[in-house]
């Protein structure tokens, strides 16, 4: 069974550019989460989808971040325009509804120069 996959694994962009991160959850997992870890600090929750609906987006830092999950399958996280402080590792995770276990992807290392 394929795990949670994220693409790209690394992205280096300049300040002001746009970047889109993608997450493919495990098939059948309705719950999808985005987290990020900035510069060795704690992993912070960004948002939570149940199928295509945003269950909780309280962790989204500002309106430069836009997450979508059209059709309830894969999800994208767009940062536009990127700022230096957006650099970090962006993790995606998925789980079954009612399941306790989260399955994480390997993350996307984003560097904004």
């Amino acid at each position, binding site marked *: 069974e394929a795990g949670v996959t994220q693409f790209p694994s690394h992205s280096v962009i300049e300040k002001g550019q746009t970047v889109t991160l993608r997450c493919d959850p495990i098939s059948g997992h309705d719950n999808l989460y985005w987290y990020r870890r900035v510069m*060795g600090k*704690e992993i*912070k929750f960004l948002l939570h989808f149940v199928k295509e609906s945003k*269950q*909780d987006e309280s962790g989204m830092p500002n309106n430069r971040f836009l997450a979508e999950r059209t059709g309830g399958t894969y999800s994208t996280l767009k940062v536009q325009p990127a700022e230096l402080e957006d650099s970090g590792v962006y993790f995606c995770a998925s*789980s079954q509804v009612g399941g306790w276990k989260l399955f*994480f992807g390997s993350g996307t290392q984003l560097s904004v120069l």
Partner: protein
Amino acid sequence: ELKVEQNPLFLSMQEGKNYTIYCNYSTTSDRLYWYRQDPGKSLESLFVLLSNGAVKQEGRLMASLDTKARLSTLHITAAVHDLSATYFCAVDWDNNNDMRFGAGTRLTVKP
């Protein structure tokens, strides 16, 4: 705001020694997780603790939960090099997998 504090943040151990990592959290919750992350890899789920007094053990790692004290511990027994990794605790504050993580403990086990 829910806060999750881990200590220590860095831990260097000799093989064969024992040590404990602590995780304090600031709100009522009875679902706490421990994860392991190797460099460049995804987070691997180690334990979920679902009630006060819960204790789980896997190999040289044992996790416990005291919901009254809002404290979880991860105890390492007779450390080996393969345990070197970063360990995170996470609190599921609304039982909906919307987790809040600690900063992580970077463990290095030296021969």
